[in-house]
Every structure is written in structure tokens, then in C-alpha cells.
């Protein structure tokens, strides 16, 4: 199953469907979930929450606790309405790190003593990844960059995040069109036999790489205007001005929703610890 999906993905790298699909999924993930509860939370609180979820599970070996953490982050991931593709990558990531060991040992009739640690490890990896998915793809990009800046991340990084979200649709479209040029005018090897398939794959990888030659030049043309416009619009002036940072960050407000979110999380985790000690 896994292999099949992989194969299909690779075969259609150049396929309009998959590039288009990819673009759609990335856009959906980036812009499609700005009206969720998670997206409206205070980024500073979410970042603290993330730190907890990403660090603490590594130090704890209690199944109930880990399970509770996992369920919590799974719930927030659902609430953040993360795109399917991101979840797929998540699944692939967990699988490649520990999941496959888990399944293999199940297959060879591993007993509880071998499965248990693996289950724990898988839970830890999964919790950590899901927490990062919730925060980084569930949060509105601008709020995320403001939150990072509040914690003292360099201004350049928060600019990069916002700019990346702005430029991505344009870049994707341009890249797609260049690939389409190759598709319309190129002549890929036939993919009937196994050797043909390998050659076809190699051809596709080559085309993707060659596409960066026109893409580099076209993007260079664009970035000149962008940087001039940034200058006019005071980007460099703001980067060294403390007042600007203050004004920008003054839009951050922790409200009732944030408190609620925090309280529920704490309650849940506390409950889990209690249950685990009672059992």
C-alpha cells in the first residue's frame, strides 16, 4: 500500500494533476484555515503550548500521559483543519522514523515487552509532530511571525514568513507553467517497461531541475521590483526602529479564548497524570 502510493506519487510528479494538487493543498494549508479557533489564538500562548508538547513527552514514559498528549494534539490538529497532504507527510514521517519498526515487530510476533517501548516512542514522535503541525500550519502566518518576534526572533525571519506566504502562489504558478512548457514541447521516454519507467522518472527529475534555470531568471526579474518597493515602503527603516516593533506587537492580545484553551489543555493533562497514578 505504502509503496504503491509512493510509486503513484512519483509517477505523476510532472502530472498536471499532482502539481496542481500539491499547489492546492499547500494553498489550502496556508490560507484555507484562517477562520478556525486555532488560527485566532494568541500566538505567544500557542508557542508556549507547543514548547510543552514538543519537549515534555520526551521526558515521560507513562503511557496514559503520552496517550493523553497525543489525543490532545490530535484534537487540535483536527480543529486547525490541516490539509490532507500535510497529514499524509506527517504519517509518512512517523512511519519512517519508528512506525515501521513497530509494525515489523508486530509481524514477527513480538511480545508486549518489545512492542511497548516502540509504541511509546511512536506516540512521542507523533505528539511532537502533530503539535508542530497545529501551531505552524494552523496559525495565521502573520500572527505566527508576530508571536515569534515577540519572543525575540530576528525581524528578518518574521518578514520571510509573511513574504513566503505572499509569494508562494505566484512562484507555484510560474513553476507550473514552466513545467507545462516542458510537457507540451518535450518528448518524455515511454513508460511501458520497467526500464522505461526508471528512465521516465529520471527524465522527470531532470526536467524539474532544468526548470530552475528559467525560474531563477524570471524570479530575479521580480525580486528587483520587490526590493525597490520594500525600500519605498520603509522596510529597512522599520527594521532598525524599536517603535515599529512595539506598534506591530501591540496588536497581540490574549483573550478569553486563549485562557480557555490553556485551561482545557492543563485540565486534560492533569487529569491524565491523575488517572495514570490511580491505576
Amino acid at each position: 500500500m505504502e509503496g504503491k502510493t509512493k510509486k503513484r506519487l512519483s509517477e505523476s510528479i510532472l502530472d498536471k494533476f499532482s502539481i496542481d494538487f500539491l499547489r492546492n493543498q499547500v494553498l489550502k494549508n496556508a490560507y484555507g484555515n484562517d477562520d478556525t479557533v486555532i488560527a485566532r489564538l494568541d500566538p505567544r500562548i500557542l508557542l508556549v503550548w507547543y514548547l510543552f508538547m514538543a519537549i515534555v513527552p520526551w521526558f515521560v514514559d507513562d503511557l496514559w500521559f503520552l496517550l493523553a498528549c497525543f489525543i490532545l494534539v490530535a484534537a487540535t490538529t483536527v480543529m486547525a483543519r490541516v490539509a490532507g497532504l500535510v497529514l499524509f507527510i506527517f504519517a509518512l514521517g512517523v512511519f519512517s522514523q519508528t512506525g515501521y519498526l513497530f509494525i515489523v515487530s508486530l509481524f514477527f510476533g513480538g511480545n508486549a515487552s518489545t512492542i511497548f517501548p516502540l509504541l511509546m516512542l511512536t506516540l512521542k514522535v507523533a505528539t511532537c509532530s502533530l503539535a508542530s503541525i497545529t501551531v505552524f500550519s494552523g496559525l495565521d502566518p502573520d500572527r505566527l511571525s508576530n508571536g515569534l518576534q515577540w519572543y525575540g526572533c530576528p525581524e528578518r525571519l518574521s518578514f520571510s514568513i509573511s513574504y513566503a506566504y505572499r509569494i508562494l502562489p505566484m512562484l507555484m504558478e510560474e513553476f507550473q507553467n514552466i513545467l507545462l512548457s516542458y510537457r507540451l514541447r518535450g518528448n518524455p521516454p515511454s513508460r511501458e517497461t520497467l526500464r522505461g519507467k526508471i528512465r521516465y522518472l529520471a527524465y522527470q527529475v531532470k526536467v524539474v531541475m532544468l526548470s530552475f534555470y528559467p525560474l531563477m531568471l524570471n524570479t530575479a526579474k521580480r525580486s528587483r521590483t520587490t526590493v525597490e518597493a520594500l525600500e519605498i515602503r520603509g522596510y529597512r527603516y522599520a527594521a532598525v526602529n524599536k517603535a515599529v516593533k512595539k506598534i506591530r506587537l501591540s496588536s497581540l492580545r490574549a483573550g478569553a479564548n486563549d485562557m480557555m484553551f490553556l485551561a482545557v489543555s492543563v485540565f486534560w493533562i492533569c487529569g491524565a497524570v491523575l488517572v495514570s497514578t490511580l491505576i
Partner: protein
Amino acid sequence: MNIIEIENLTYSYPAAESPILNHISLEVEKGDFLAVVGNNGCGKSTFCKTLNGLIPHFIDGDFEGTVKVDGINTLESDVATLASRAGYVYQDFENQIVRPTVLDDASYACLNYAMEDYEERGRRALRMCGLEGRENDYIWQLSGGQTHLLALAGAVSLQPEILILDEPIAQLDPGHADRIYGVLKELNERYGKTIIVIEHHTEYIADYCRHVMLMRDGGIAWKLPTGEALRRVEELQECNIFPPQVTIAAHRMKREGRMTPDAPLPTTVEEGRRAFGGLRYESPEKKASESSMEAESAVSFRDVSLSYRSVKGEDYRVFDHLNLEIRKGEKIALIGSNGAGKSTMMKLMVGLLKPASGEILIGGESIRKKKTEDLSRKISLVYQNPEEMFIKDSIEADIAYAMQVRNVENYRERTEALLERFRLLPLKKRDGRLLSGGQMRRASLAIGVALNPGILLLDEPTANLDIATRKEIMRTLSDMKGITETVMIATHDMQLVCEWAERIIVLCGGRVVADGPRDEIFGNKEVIRTVGIRPPEIFSMGRALDEKALCYTVDEFLEHFKE
């Protein structure tokens, strides 16, 4: 009061041999609406960048003379101060937008200059530019025209006295173009802003601008009130500027002695009504239309439906059971506003998109099972943006590529022939991207016909070109009528439609709302109004004089309107 005072400005780019601006002196009054015209490469954009301080503060080079903007000497100031005096909107405006959402981008500059009320300023700018209600949208949800308005709002938000726009309507359909100029007019009249546009479309200059400045070889030839400026037909044409068609028509009448020599030339349809008032329309004898009904089918759409996945909510349905027949040998123009489905239709035909249901036949065969690379021998698509067609490092290699990988015999000779035919021989080793607009366009056409396809699809072949280059491309397209049997052009350029097309298909919201020869389309007021087509000015002139008149070119106008 003068808002701009320039004295003896000379500027050259670093490492350039001769100055691009040469001893310029100019005064612009506060509240003016000035059009800057001139040949490509005469320094128009460079001139505008001296006004907001990008030159000399951001772009290096040799700078002499003084530029005073709103009383400030640009040399003694900095870009930040000048930005609040003179706002600038680039020709490639989409690259000047750097934030993901609308309000955020409109207030970005105010925030950067540490204004406490930055959000309110952004909102006000959006209101002034007619983007109210779109505050929380993402940039990619905007149409091209709206994106331009947003770039304008970003400049307006700092409340500068001067607004400079580099070719504001080059990429827009007529509906959006009218809207941009409507907003500019309001900014000028109601808010008292001084507006400077670099503009090729003289009809818009005639309708909106107060003064025209002609630039030639890095200098200012003259600056005159619009009417007077546009009447200098010969001088403008020498610089590849084409005055409004009404003016050209009157100018030619005068030369032929059909008008009194001392009467002023009209520049707008309104003035034309008076100037041509005495003319009478003689309808031409209807040529028996040769029916092409019998010709073989080239492409046919059978019940085609297609939806786009949308980022949020429901999928967007582009076509719903579309049926259309295209016959061999037809020269078709596909028109309709942005987002009507023109590009999508073309992508369906070349197999880049697959319909959700229904069938597309090319030469009687369904393309559902065909590979894109096999289809390309029969049908070829030339993109709107030629830069995306250049995938090699020289146009010669680009033209040869499709033939080379298909092992076409003597592809070298064919490439050579195509280079010759499209007058690209001296440029053949150059990278396509580094050519001028017209050369780029010719090269993309050559790439499109390289495989000798029976059907050629062109997406906006004249977009983004100045009028002179547009004429040149139109000539090339006429030449090409012999090479390719069936041609379809998606375009907003009504002059191209009128002069070139034999059949016009009007798309609106994914439906074919009108289909026929030009008389049928342009004669139908209902269609023109609902779809928002702006016919060529000379056509409107004719209609204004006589309801029955159908003349599409200046030649036809002169022929059919008699004393």
C-alpha cells in the same frame, strides 16, 4: 504652485556609456494629471524614479542637477521622507505587494514608518481606491485590476501629494482599465492629488489627462495641454505613439482636403461628434458571406464540464456542459472579461486539463486517452507570458527544442527558416527573457508554430505591449494566416479582434453568450453591455454619428462616411 521643479537633471546608470536622462528641466503644477509618453527606452521610467528618490538614493549612478518634490530637494532628503510625498506604482505591480492580505498590505508602509493609526490609514486608502469590503481577503483572491488598485492603495496610504503610475492598464481588460482611471480621476479631482502616468493608450489620455509630456532620447520634447498635444499627430507618430483613432481619422481627412484645414482636430468621441457632424454614412454592399459550415471539424467540445478545486468551500465550476464546434481554417477571437474561462478553454484543448465530464475531439478523435506530447503536433498553445515559454538559454535552442527531441528531420534548417520568418536571425543566440517585449512575443510565436501544428492557440498575444509593438505583432499574425490553418486568439484587444478575426466567440461566466462574425457581435448592444466589451474608438465614433454604422478601422471609417 509648482509641486515638482526639476532643473537641468542629467543621470546615467552605472556602467552606462551615455546618460539616459539628459538635461531635463520641468515644472509640474499641483493638482495636474500628467501623461508621460515616449518611445520605449526613452527614459520614462527612469525619470519617474528620480521623483521618489529611488534615484539617486537606492539606485547608483551619476546624478547631476536638482529635483525638488513638494519643496524638498531629493538629493538632500531620503527615500523615507520622499515616499510620503510621491507614491509609485510599478508596471509589474504584483511584485510590489509583499504581504499576504489586503488590509495588511495597504497599511504596511504606514506601519513601517511607525504611524500609530496605521490600520485606519490603510482602511482609508482602500476606501479611496474602491477596495472597501475586501480588507481581509488574500492577495491571490483578487483579480488583476483589484491587485493594481491595491498597489495604488499601498502608495496612497502614506497620503502623498503626488502619485506616479507606470503603465497602469497595460495588463488589464477594458472594464478594469476604466475602473482604474475612474479611481485616479477621483483622487485627482476630489482629493487634489497630482497624478503622473506613463501611458500608451491615447484614448485614455484624451479622456482623463490634463497635460501630456513627450520624452525623446532622454530629454523632454514638450509639455502641452492634452488636446493640443494629441493634435500633433505626425510628431507623435514619429515617436511611435498613436493618437486616438478619431484624431487620426480627422487628420487624414484634412490631408485629403476633406476637412477645413484650420478646424481643430477632435481627440474624443464627443469632440468628434461635432467635427464629423456633417458626414453621412453609406452602408457598404453586403458581401455574400461564404459559408464555412461545410468545413471539417477541427475541435469540438461535447458537453464539457470542469471545476477547479478551490482553497475554501465549494469547488468553482468553470464550464457546465459546454458545447462548441471549431472548424478547420477558422480565425477565431475568444473574448470575455478576466476569469470568463478563456485560458481554461485553451488548456483543455491542448490536454493540460482534463474535463470532469464530456469529451473534446480534435480532428474527430477524442483526446482523453492521448498523451500531451503527442497532441502537440496537432495543436499548440502560446502563453500569455512569453517568459514562461523560454526554457532554454537562447531562442534558437528554444525554437529547435520541440523538433529536436522528436527527431524531426532537418530541424536545423527549419529552425533557421523560422528565425528568418519571424525576423529573429540576428538575435538567435540571445536569451528570450532579455529581449524587448515585441521580440519576446515574436520568439514565442515562432516556438508555437515550430511543430507545424494544424491548430494554434494564442493567449493574449498583444498584452503588455506598447501600441507600436502591438501593430507589429498584428502584422505578424496576419502573415501567419498562411502558415497555420486554424487559429484561436484569446484577447482583450478589440482592435486586434476587429482587424483580424473572422469569427468571434464571447465567453461570460463559462458560457458562450455570443458567437458569430464581427458585425453580429459588435452590432449587438445587449452583448456589448453585459460582457463589458469596449469596441475600438473609431467604431464607437461611427455608431455615435449613425446608429447603423459598422466601421472597425480608420480606413473603413474614411471610406464609408462621406460628405
